[in-house]
């Protein structure tokens, strides 16, 4: 009995110091993986795909307007999501890319969205393109659309969804990302409704994940959070996922974009 008590005291004394050390080690590791990031390889492949003639119209995506004018990529990602007058919709990068695939290249929705999330052996077209386009916004402050009424509405919807508890486990995003000092195993969980926590997130997604050697997009990130909450799978680039992206990006706006990032 005495031994047990002693053990409990020991654990109490050393646990905070241990967590601090582990946190430092994780930061060191994160710096190392950033230095050795293969993100540029994805950017190269993405550039080829951007220029590749595809679809029934046999044209490339080079005339795609991501908000800065047809084919203008510099800083385009940093200004998304935003409202596009031609579709009268708020769109994020993937939504707009899909729009260009359908309109410019004349592809059909089913074919273009058949494989939006890839794997380590075969990344998807969306993933390669996201890497290339996001890379063209390095150093540009994140400033999504915040003026248009539809942009404001998307932000409001995203905020509501963030706090909305639903699904078989009655979870919301805020169940995990709504309180300081929470973590899953050794991963700190950022409180994404606060600017200081959201900024480093929106400044580094999309990102390469070292643990499974895959490049992942923001739509995937949101999709996977819903999977972890045991919710029904959201539709790719649906109004809800774009709104969620809008909420996060507006909350974390103003820091220069420094991605595509590298995650553990």
């Amino acid at each position: 009995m005495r031994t047990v008590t002693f053990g409990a005291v020991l654990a109490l004394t050393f646990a905070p110091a241990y967590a601090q050390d582990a946190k430092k080690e994780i930061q060191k590791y994160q710096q190392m993986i950033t230095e050795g990031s293969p993100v540029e390889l994805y950017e190269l492949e993405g550039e080829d795909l951007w220029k590749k003639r595809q679809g029934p119209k046999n044209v490339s995506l080079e005339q795609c307007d991501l908000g800065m004018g047809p084919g203008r990529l510099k800083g385009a990602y940093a200004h998304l999501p935003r409202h596009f007058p031609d579709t009268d919709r708020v769109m994020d990068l993937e939504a707009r890319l899909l729009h260009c695939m359908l309109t410019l290249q004349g592809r059909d929705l089913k074919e273009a969205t058949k494989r939006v999330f890839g794997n380590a052996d075969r990344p998807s077209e969306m993933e390669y393109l996201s890497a290339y386009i996001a890379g063209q916004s390095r150093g540009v402050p994140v400033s999504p659309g915040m003026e248009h009424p539809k942009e404001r509405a998307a932000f409001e919807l995203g905020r509501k969804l963030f706090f909305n508890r639903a699904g078989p486990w009655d979870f919301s995003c805020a169940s995990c990302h709504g309180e300081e000092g929470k973590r899953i195993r050794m991963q700190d969980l950022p409180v994404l409704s606060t600017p200081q926590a959201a900024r480093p997130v929106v400044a580094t997604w999309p990102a390469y994940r070292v643990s499974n050697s895959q490049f992942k997009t923001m739509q995937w990130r949101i999709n996977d959070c819903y999977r972890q909450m045991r919710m029904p799978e959201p539709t790719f680039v649906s109004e809800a996922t774009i709104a969620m992206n809008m909420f996060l990006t507006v909350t974390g706006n103003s820091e220069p974009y420094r991605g595509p990032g590298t995650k553990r």
Partner: protein
Amino acid sequence: MAAGPMKMRATLGSGFTDVRVLMSHPMETGQRKGPDGNLVPAHFIQNLTVKVNGKAVIEAQISQAVSRNPVFSFRLKGGAKGDRIEVSWLDNRGETNKTETAIA
């Protein structure tokens, strides 16, 4: 990502050159099981060669322990603007790839 593109940067410092090279390669260990339950055959880079102006300066032997899409960086003594650096690899299937750049 099968054996795909490579990317390299060589920057001149004072009296040295920093080289950073990225290569896409699956680097399969041969120990991992695929979704069908069978072992995924080994496929990894074995030899890495670095040449400066055609002369080999590094011959490295690497193995399965290196991760997918490896990144190597190393510092070479000397070097001058415009020197050609060539990096090539050879894997256990006999596939090979190389990239070349000038020191900037």
